[in-house]
């Protein structure tokens, strides 16, 4: 799914096929279907955590804007890009 098709009101959740742990400021995510694993750190980790709180895409961007010193538009774009990638990898899915 590309960034352009993400709606700001969409809510995602961690997919049922993954397990994850926070290890040394990184999220390590294991996909049991493919046995592939992913790691997210920094802003990526924070986005992953906020997805776990069932926030909308817009709410996640707004929260990150409060936490990180970067232009809101940049944060929104990066956030949508990452969620799009996670969805493409099927490790997040619509809630």
């Amino acid at each position: 799914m590309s960034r352009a098709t993400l709606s700001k009101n969409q809510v995602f959740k961690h997919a049922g096929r993954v397990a994850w742990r926070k290890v040394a400021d990184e999220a390590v995510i294991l996909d049991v279907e493919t046995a592939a694993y992913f790691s997210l750190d920094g802003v990526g980790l924070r986005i992953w955590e906020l997805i776990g709180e069932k926030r909308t895409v817009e709410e996640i961007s707004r929260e990150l804007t409060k936490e990180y010193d970067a232009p809101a538009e940049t944060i929104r774009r990066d956030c949508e890009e990452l969620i799009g990638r996670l969805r493409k990898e099927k490790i997040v899915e619509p809630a």
Partner: protein
Amino acid sequence: MKDRFVFVDPPSPPGFVSFKHSHGGYGEFCRESRLRIPTLDLFHGASLLLDNGFSAEIVDSVLEGHSLAQSADEVVRRKPSVVVIRTACASLPRDLELAQNLRKRCGAQIIIYGPQLAAESERAKAREAVDAVVAGDAPAAFLDIARGKTPKEASGVWGDNLDAVPIPRWDLVDYKRYTYVTSQTSWGCPLGCGYCSYPVTQGARWKTRSIGSVVREFSALRDRYRLRYVQLRDPEFTFNRRRTVDLCTALIEAGVPITWGCDTRLDTLDEELIELMAKAGCLRVTFGVESLNPQALRLMNRPVFSPEVIKAKAACLKKNRMLAYALYIIGLPGETRKSTRELIDFALELGTEAASFSMATPFPGTALERLGRARGWISAPDPRRLTSSVPSMRNADLSAGEIEEFYLEAKLRWGQRKQPALT
């Protein structure tokens, strides 16, 4: 001049992907798989030589998707003086083709190794194509050979000093292309399930590495190789509760260097231990259900667990946010059409995140092989069929063809299931 060793994981047979470390090293060959898993003992052998000042390289033709010709080209290009070929039960004839090709093209000494070569009949087949055959815990044998012993003299065993097992040099290949890398912290299994190869290839005595050596390896995987997950290949990771507690505690004290998955048996897990393992970074637990049929389980020297007990343990894994991976064997002696249908239904009902179905396979030296031979159930003495995705035996009630039909049905129904949520 010191020998230049090149270790080779030969190409997968056409239409299959090989996993030579499976079944205690006898190997598994899957018809379809996107997984690429390293053959750990190959890395142990090469790394042990490097740690002791010898030259060693690895050609992983499974990872590279080589044909036999491409694999030979790659080995020859590295100008070896010793070529070490890792074979497995089902791939020996094809691996010997590679050996013969290499013998014609380079002057290197050709050695082949694999646990099934402990059997004289298999060694005899291999001898014609290679200069030396090594069976058993081969990695340590290669150090002996590098030090000038003949392969016959090489002891080939780690003995009790499992801390001599080196930290694998994963950068000998493009290791990031593996689905995950693997490690092993204990060897052998005294539980003696009749279908299982591990007691045959690694011994019935349970042997472990020290906690410190495991923590050092996990830390190296993170710091040196930037890895975040390792799959443990211990036959029975939680066999000794005290050791599991000590290892998990040490990993927690070390800041959980890496996440990991393990294989074990449900009766060696309890809620408290599962919670501790989760805290120590465990993300995935693979366990054998194998069968629900009391007669089949008794014939295979395996305790009978009620479906309720299995469900409770699987639920506990889920509660601790671990992925549960259940294993089932179709067609064990004692299984009937009815009990096999019940087993498949149970697999779907249990709803683990992953499941693996295999067909009963009479691996050399197992009680299943002895029983199958005694009853005339082994339809395919050809070792090329010794992989659990190809039917190789029947039982009193099910023909080999029926076992394959149930196996395919199980895989199909599993593929069509609704994905359970990990809550």
